[in-house]
């Protein structure tokens, strides 16, 4: 079973309007997959199809090796989800809502409700009716419910909406722990990179209903972001030396003094030596990195 979630050219249109087009994404077992995109890009649409609430117009969804069909119900037992925003029976207490969830999931493990409430700091509010909860508390109760039955796959649609920074951090820690301790696969959407960059193993970027890129965070850090910036007195000649004598292609002339080399196979010392040998004054040289934010802005802009 190569992927826990795999979609193949997933397309959804409603009333002639195409919401998402040709979405192919791949979520590996036991990873946290950040599904990133601006509001209205189609994240929720994709998540609804992954949880079988919506049926694709074209394309297919495979969950844990099983292609979703109209009657794929069994697979839902192994998933926990929040789609759009968590909904509850508002008149019932938080605890009763979780107990109902256990009944419907067919999950009876003593202490699981209490444990889940404790994990999300809701023990004190457990007996209060949900209609008295704040937005942040509802969001936490939603997460408590999603993780309650120990699912193999969590599908969380913007789960930190309405939480304060401390709350967000707490959720991130929790998700990381679920991944490490229970090997839960987590598919989490967000419109803010900063929210998921620290926990995601892979990031899929969607913009205007199309998948822009799917990259592993490790790869970004290693390949795309880091560069060596060199300040010289004569960029033209320096560029000539880099291209001709050192056989480098992956560099960019920034302005009249600066060059960025993205090919990190050549150590900075060697670059400096080669340039000096070519009678070029190297004023400064150093390894730097572009911020992830810039990188993703570039990727999402690319879709426009």
């Amino acid at each position, binding site marked *: 079973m190569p992927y826990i979630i795999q979609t193949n050219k997933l397309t959804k249109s*409603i009333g002639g309007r195409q919401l998402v087009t040709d979405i192919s994404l791949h979520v590996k077992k036991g990873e946290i997959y950040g599904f990133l995109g601006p509001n209205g890009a189609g994240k929720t649409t994709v998540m*609804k199809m992954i*949880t079988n*609430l*919506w*049926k694709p117009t074209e394309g297919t969804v495979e969950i844990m090796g099983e292609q979703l069909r*109209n*009657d794929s*119900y*069994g*697979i*839902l*037992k192994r*998933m926990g*989800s929040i*789609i*759009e925003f968590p*909904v*509850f*029976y508002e*008149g*019932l207490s938080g605890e009763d809502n979780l107990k*109902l969830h256990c*009944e*419907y*999931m*067919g999950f009876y493990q003593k202490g699981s409700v209490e444990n889940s409430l404790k994990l999300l700091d809701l023990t004190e509010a457990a007996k209060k009716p949900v209609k008295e909860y704040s937005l942040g508390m509802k969001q936490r109760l939603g997460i408590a419910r999603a993780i309650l039955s120990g699912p193999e796959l969590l599908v969380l649609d913007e789960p930190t909406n309405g939480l304060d920074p401390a709350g967000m951090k707490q959720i991130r820690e929790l998700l990381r722990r679920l991944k490490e301790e229970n090997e839960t696969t987590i598919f989490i959407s967000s419109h803010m990179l900063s929210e998921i960059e620290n926990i995601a193993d892979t990031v899929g970027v969607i913009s205007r209903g199309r998948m822009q890129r799917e990259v592993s965070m490790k790869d970004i850090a290693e390949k795309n972001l880091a560069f060596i910036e060199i300040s010289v007195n004569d960029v033209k000649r320096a560029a000539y030396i880099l291209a001709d004598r050192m056989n480098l292609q992956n560099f960019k002339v920034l302005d009249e003094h600066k060059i960025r080399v993205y090919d990190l196979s050549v150590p900075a010392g060697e670059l400096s030596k080669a340039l000096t040998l070519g009678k070029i004054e190297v004023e400064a040289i150093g390894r730097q990195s572009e911020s992830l934010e810039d990188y993703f802005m570039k990727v999402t802009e690319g879709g426009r």
Partner: protein
Amino acid sequence: MDLFKLIKLEYRKNNIGKYVRNAVILALLLAAFIFALAFLGIANDPDGKLDAAPGNNVLSAPVEMFTSMVFLIFTSVMLSTFIVSAYKNKTMILMFSYPIKRQKILASQMLAVWIFNFAALTLTKLIIYLCAAAVAHFREPSFLLDYNIGSVSFYVQMILKSAVIVSMSFIALFIGLAMKSSKATIVSSFLLVFLTQANVGDYTMADSAVLPVVLIVVSLGFAFLSVCSAEKKDLI
């Protein structure tokens, strides 16, 4: 998961105690009203004679009419909170994310309401009929007591009529679901009441045996269709 358990969970979720209380209040009000009609003469003309349409001077006429009216509307109100609101406030998204066939979920919600109201309507009528028969020993009723509490056919008829009335509310449910509106559900139930219970002059459809049968066939047909299509349709 078995259907019976799903029905029980529906009751738990929707706070059935509230409905039990309301149904009891309605039953008491209905009983008091029928008692006033039959024994206190509030439907009588000043000369003391009953003012009723021909053929309606029997006690079963007002009992059937008023209990049916009230419980048809009550059933629709319950259907709208159990099902129509579940679509509107998106708890249906939650229900459809469980490993349970969608058809089964819908069927359990409809059955939960049906069973409750069938029981409530039948009990209400039973109590009213039995009380009226008992009181008639001591006091002359304005209406003819046209039933025999000793005969089986009386009970069979009462049960069948209750089933027809409660099932009819499914028509209101489908109108409400189609329009995604709780109000439409309840307004439709009023229209059903007028259609089936009201009389224009001496003309009424309440006694027609064909109309309820047609309505039941139509409503069960709709029920079947909408339950079956739930699996293929997007949940919006």
